[in-house]
Structure formats: structure tokens, C-alpha cells
């Protein structure tokens, strides 16, 4: 409540992060980690079969991978830092205090990975076949190492419960879902890279003679990789009950999540089935069917996006379990703030508040401090789109008092009674009396 508030209009803060993160995740999985596998495999094949043209084709595909990973891929990686820290400085600030060394190590591996990528791609002709291929192998290893580290850090962020108790980072790092996650992410990366690789290959018409070679290899790989990926995903689901038991105390959440898990499990099986089928066709027919062939890959990206969403969702209402609520209030301080009020220390929202009526102004400040991290006004997850719950001040006030049970994934209302009533009055105004009286924007002093 002490920290500056950022409100992304229309799409909201969570979607803003999701956009940056998803772009980064698809590129880092598909084009960096998976990409290194795809290129190095073709490189190996070209050396073994003494097929120079296949090597040249691989080099050209690598160029596209290189361009995308070192521009959009790298920048969205930094972008996750900038965006999340802007949306919730206290969360990222706290996580940095806890996980600094993990991220520092990750950064070192990143630098190594980038250097190897540049040596591999920019030195492709210079270093010749033997040395070049060796560099490629190192690049493959380094980029997989980044994934190995990040999977652990993500896990540690989701289950810092053990960190809170034992103070040992490794308890969170090697949490029960670590291995299944690593396996599924690794094979997902490989699958995505085959999709992207085949797609990009079609732009190099000069190498059409090599297409069948690649298709045959890709088909074979898909048939092997896709089932292993499915195995990884299923064992991830299998490891979840322990996770959920640890993470989500409320039965309701578990129920919602379990239902979702069941559906998504079936969806994943269907997609993997399609991929195997695609692999069989590629292997036997040695041709693809234009853009239709890439449907399974797109579906996989979408399914993966929602998988990441769920993974993040099970953190709620915390960003650091049992330590920090997603709106940046420390759990320990909840009763204290209930007593002194959240607006006691609230310079930033005071600075930007626009309402002039004292009660509405207080409500506006409370809204910005406690709700705005997830809720926009009228955009995604917008507060004005929930008139059914927010009918009038009295009903809203009642909701604010009780939603802790009905909506356990939202952080509870924290603050004095007067602040809760002010928030109710403010919500009533913006939801039900939006045009009654425009806020005086001059009055922000």
C-alpha cells in the first residue's frame, strides 16, 4: 500500500504481464532451447550423411532463430523484469531479496548461452564443420541449462512454503513437480522447434530438394518426442495433488482446479495425438499440407499458454505463499492494517487520486491499493462489468466483508471499517452511477 500503483488501461496489469511473458516463453522454448536442438540435429545429420546442402539449409533456419531470439526474445526477457516490477514493485522487490542468487546464476548462464549462440551462428563458416558442431553442442547444453535453472526457480516461487519454514532455497527448487515440469518443458521445446523449423524452412524455396530429408527426420522425431512429452505432462498432473494440498487450503479452489485439470488433460492428449499423427504423415508421405500442418503446433502453444496461466493461478491470493498477497500487502501485517487502516501510509495513491468528495476519495485510494493490481475499471476483469455482485453500496459492503470465503483466490479486504465503507461507496459510484458526476481531475492535490 506504500508502493506506487500502476494501472494498465483496458487489458489490465495481469494481461500485460501475460502478453510479454507468453511471447518470451514461446520464443525461449521454441526458438532458443528447442531451436538449438533442431539446428544441432540437422547439423549432425548433414555431417554424418555428408550432405552439405542440408547444413546450409540448417544455417539459414538458424539465422531466423538467431534474429528472433536475440531481438524480441531477449527484449521480452528483460521486459518481464521491467513489466512485473512496474506492476508490483513490492512483489518483485521481495522476490529479488529472496531469489537474487538464483537469478544471478541464471544471468551468468544466459551470458554464456548468448556468447555460444553468437559463436555458433556468426562463426558457422569460420570455424568449419568439426569445431562449429562442437560449439553447437555446447550451445545446446547451455540453453537447456537455462531451462533447468528457470524451472527450479519458478517452482521455488510457487512453493516457497518450505523456504518460509526451513530457509533453504533448495527445498523450493527441487519441489515435487520439478522433474515432471522439466521433462515436459524440455520436450515441449523440442516439439515447438520442429513446428517453427518446418514453418520457416518453407521460405527457403531454393532448398526444396532437402525438404523430404527434413520431413522424414521431423516425422520420426515427432513420433518419439510427443509421447514422452505427454508422459511428462501426465506425471506433472500426477504430482499436482501434493502441490495443491500444499498450496490451496480451500476445497473450492481445488475443485475448480481439478475440473480444469481434467479437461486440460484430455486436451493435451488430443493435441499430442494430433502431433503423432502429423509425425506419421511426415515420415511416410514426406510432405506437408501447407498451413494446416501447423495447426497442432498452434494448438500446443495455446494449451501451453493456459497451462502457464493455471500454474500462475494456483499461487493466488498470494505472490509469495503465505508471505505476500498479490496486492503487495504482507500477510503478517494484515491485522495491523485492519487496525490503523491502509490509508495511513499511502502517499502514492494520495498523489494521484482524482475524487474530491472525502469519502469517495478514500474509496478510490483503497481501490487503487487493494484491487487495481488485478481489476481495471471497464476493461479486462473490469469492475464495471460485475454489476450483479456490486449492486449498491450496501450489497457491496456486505460482499467486501464476506468474499474471503466465497472468493478465496482474491486477497481479503484489509483495512478499517470506514475504509471498507468508503470503498463500497466508491465502487457503487463507478459501477452504478458512472455518469453521475465526472471526477474533477484538477483536484489531485
Amino acid at each position: 500500500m506504500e508502493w506506487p500503483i500502476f494501472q494498465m488501461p483496458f487489458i489490465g496489469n495481469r494481461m500485460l504481464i501475460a502478453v510479454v511473458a507468453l511471447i518470451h516463453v514461446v520464443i525461449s522454448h521454441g526458438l532458443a532451447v528447442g531451436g538449438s536442438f533442431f539446428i544441432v540435429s540437422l547439423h549432425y545429420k548433414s555431417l554424418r550423411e555428408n550432405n552439405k546442402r542440408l547444413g546450409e539449409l540448417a544455417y539459414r533456419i538458424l539465422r531466423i532463430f538467431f534474429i528472433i531470439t536475440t531481438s524480441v526474445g531477449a527484449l521480452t526477457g528483460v521486459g518481464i523484469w521491467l513489466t512485473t516490477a512496474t506492476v508490483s514493485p513490492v512483489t518483485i522487490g521481495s522476490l529479488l531479496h529472496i531469489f537474487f542468487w538464483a537469478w544471478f546464476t541464471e544471468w551468468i548462464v544466459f551470458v554464456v548461452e548468448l556468447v555460444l549462440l553468437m559463436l555458433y551462428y556468426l562463426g558457422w563458416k569460420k570455424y568449419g564443420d568439426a569445431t562449429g558442431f562442437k560449439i553447437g553442442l555446447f550451445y545446446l547444453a547451455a540453453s537447456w541449462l537455462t531451462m533447468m535453472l528457470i524451472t527450479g526457480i519458478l517452482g521455488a516461487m510457487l512453493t516457497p512454503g518450505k523456504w518460509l519454514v526451513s530457509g533453504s532455497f533448495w527445498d523450493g527448487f527441487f519441489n515435487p513437480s520439478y522433474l515432471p515440469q522439466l521433462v515436459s518443458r524440455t520436450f515441449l521445446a523440442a516439439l515447438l522447434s520442429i513446428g517453427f523449423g518446418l514453418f520457416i524452412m518453407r521460405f527457403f524455396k531454393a532448398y526444396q530438394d532437402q525438404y523430404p530429408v527434413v520431413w522424414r527426420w521431423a516425422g520420426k522425431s515427432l513420433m518419439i518426442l510427443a509421447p514422452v512429452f505427454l508422459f511428462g505432462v501426465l506425471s506433472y498432473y500426477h504430482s499436482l495433488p501434493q502441490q495443491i494440498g500444499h498450496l490451496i487450503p480451500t476445497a473450492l479452489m481445488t475443485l475448480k482446479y481439478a475440473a480444469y485439470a481434467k479437461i486440460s488433460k484430455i486436451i493435451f492428449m488430443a493435441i499430442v495425438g494430433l502431433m503423432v499423427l502429423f509425425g506419421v504423415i511426415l515420415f511416410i508421405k514426406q510432405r506437408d499440407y501447407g498451413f494446416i500442418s501447423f495447426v497442432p503446433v498452434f494448438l500446443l502453444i495455446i494449451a501451453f499458454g493456459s497451462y502457464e496461466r493455471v500454474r500462475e493461478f494456483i499461487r493466488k491470493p498470494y505472490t509469495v505463499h503465505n508471505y505476500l498477497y498479490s496486492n503487495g500487502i504482507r500477510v503478517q501485517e494484515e491485522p495491523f492494517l485492519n487496525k490503523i487502516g491502509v490509508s495511513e501510509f499511502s502517499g502514492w495513491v494520495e498523489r494521484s487520486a482524482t475524487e474530491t468528495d472525502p469519502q469517495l476519495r478514500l474509496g478510490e485510494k483503497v481501490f487503487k491499493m487493494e484491487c487495481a493490481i488485478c481489476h481495471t475499471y471497464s476493461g479486462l476483469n473490469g469492475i464495471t462489468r460485475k454489476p450483479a455482485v456490486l449492486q449498491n453500496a450496501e450489497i457491496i459492503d456486505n460482499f467486501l466483508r464476506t468474499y474471503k470465503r466465497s472468493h478465496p483466490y482474491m486477497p481479503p479486504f484489509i483495512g478499517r471499517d470506514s475504509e471498507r465503507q468508503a470503498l463500497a461507496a466508491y465502487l457503487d459510484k463507478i459501477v452504478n452511477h458512472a455518469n453521475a458526476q465526472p471526477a474533477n481531475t484538477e483536484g489531485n492535490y
Partner: protein
Amino acid sequence: MDIIPITIPLELPAAIWFLKFALIAFFVVHILFINFMIGGTFWTVFFRMLGKEDPFYSRLAREMGNTVTVNKSLAVVIGVAPLLAISLVYTSFFYSANNITAPLWLSIIWLVALAFVALYIYKYSWDSPNYSRRFKYFWGVLAFAIFCFVPLIFLSNINLMLYPDQWKNVYNFWQALWVPNVIPRYLHFMNASFALTGFFAYGYFHFKGKNNKADAEYYNRAQRLGIKWALVATALQLVFGVINYGTLPVVADSLSVLTLIVIAVIFAGVAVFMLANNLFVKDTFRPEWVLVAILVVVSLMATLRHEIRENALREPKKILANKTELYRSRLATFLKTYSPTGEIQLTGEAIFQDVCTACHAIDRKIVGPSMEFAIKKYSDDRNGMIEFISNPRKIDPAFPVMPKPPISGKEVELVVDYLLSLEVGR
């Protein structure tokens, strides 16, 4: 300055000296690559235009473009380390400034990504007969234009962080630009980019030329061009550097800042002297020496910026520490009385110890009278004592007036009952 956010109550993950050292050291590496990236992009576009007349420039532009591909990627990835360090060392200040410039601060991601893609299009369309000249140049110019704009966002942000007294007047990036020192600092930085790119070209073409005796003429000319750029731009820092320093807010200045500037100027002079010698007389000074000298200058500049940060934030940090302390002590006091099942009422004695003993003792006068005196006075007037503690007035001219204590209602009663129950003074 009352809006500086309270410090996060977690231990720093590393010693503060380590984080500050990492911040300065990795920043130096980061900013060098940034300088090479900006200057290199200018070279690859500018000299390509000159290349119409002279194939030397054409080749130079292309080779410089190739270095940009590497330098720009290293610049970004190495920048993450100082970003993490500054976020930890100056959390409350850095994140606050980010918030004020937020839309443009976040646009850095997309602007730089666009510039990088533009650079790739520029590079890979170089020899293609399919595109017009205008198309090819457009992407290079676009990348350079973005590179000229993005430092403004960084500088306005990093400068705003130092002056929390401005946070109440500054609501966005455009206003942050006019906080003192931003524009002069920007000009100084951009000129430094050109100077350092000159040094880079000198070193790069020297070491490349060593393994390439056949092309000695080309590499020699390229080196000399680097020297000229380094000389001219470094000499010009006379203007930009002085303006930059002269517009520094007084709170940020100190003798250490002055000292670092003087040392840096001397080292810059040494580098310039060696370069001029190599250019106009003969190659007597090894390029390694020149590069070490200029590296020392850049390191001194980064240390200087750190000194300025520490100076400007000295008082704001104290204010923040006091504010944090206030919050934490109130929280700690509260947690003493709190349990999940309900509030624990402190005893009258505990409240007396916490609140009153700064000025009162039972058996002697400190600032206020002894409690023996007060108990005697109020022994038959419980309500009178409660009334006085709740709203103290000046009664005895021998004592200063008592400030209103931070307790109320039930707590006051508990203190009074505790005092009146004491077997003293009766």
C-alpha cells in the same frame, strides 16, 4: 519526500558493498557495449552513404555493422546484472521513478526490439537486389533514431530517482525530462558514445589488421579514422562535460565528485595525447595502453555517477529510514498485543513502561514530576488523572507542558489504575 515507499523488510541477499560493486562494474561493461552499439549504428549508416564515392567506406560500414550485431546483444544481456543490483540497492527510489515514467519506461522493451529487428533487416538486405536504396537505409536510420531516443527514457528515469522532492511535481516522462541535469547528461552521454566508438574502431581494426597483413592499407585507414573520431569527440567533452557538471543539483555534489572528474580528465588527456601522437607522428604507443586509459576514464565516470547517487540520496535515505522505523515500531508494538483470537490487552504497567518512562520515574523527577508526587495529588481523584493524561495542560510552571501521549480510552484507565494501585507516596 513523504511518499518514498517503506523499505522491504527482508535481508539483502548479499553484502551491500558487493551489490554496489556489482552495480558499478557490470554497468561499465553494459554501458560500453551500449556506446559501441549507438556509435556503431551511426557509423554503419553514415559511412555507407559515403561509400558511394569511396569503396573503403562501404567496406567499413559493413564491418562496423557486423560488430553492432554482437555488441547490441551483449549490451542487453549484460544490462540485466546492473538492473538487478540497482533494484536491490535503491529499491524504494528506483521503482518509484519507474512508476512515474511507466508507459515510456515499459515501451523500451518494444522500441529496442523494433530497433534490433530493423538492424537485422538493414544488415541482411545489404546486398539484395530486390530492395530499393531508400528501403535499405530506412531501417538503419530507424534503428539509430530509436537508439537516440531510448537513452532519454533511461536518463530521465534514473535521474528522477535521485530527487524524491520532485516526485510530487512530476507526473510523466515529459516532465521528468526537465528535472535538472537530464538533458546535459544526455548530450554528454551521446557524445561519449561517439568518442568510445572511435576508440573501439581503433582497437578493433588494429587487432583485426594484425592477422590480416594483406589488407594492411584498409585496416590502417580504418584505425586512423577511429582515432580521429575519438580525438574530436573526446575534445568536445570539454563543453558537454562541463555543462553536465555545472547543472548538477547542489545536494549531489561533493569533493569526491570533483576529485573523480579531475582524475578522469587527466586520464582522458593521456589517452588523447597517445592517440594524437600515433596519428600525427608515428605509432609509438601501443593501442592496449590507449584502451586501458580510456577504460579507466569510463570506470571513473561510473564511480562518479555512483558518488552522485549516494550524495543526492543521503538525506532522502535518512528520511526513509526514519519513516520505516516508525512503521516497524508501530507494527511491532501492535503485534505484541495481537493474537489471532483477539487482542491481548497490555497491562497498565507495560503501557507505563512503554509510553511514560521517557519523562517520568516513580521515585524521582526526570523531565516531569515523580509519580509519587502525582499519585499523592490524584489519590482521591481517579477521573481527574484520566482527564489530565488524555488532555494534558500546563499546570506547574516549573515543568514543561506534557505532550499528549499516544494512548486513549481503556489504555489511559489501565495506566491510571496501575499507578493508583502502587503503595507509594500515600
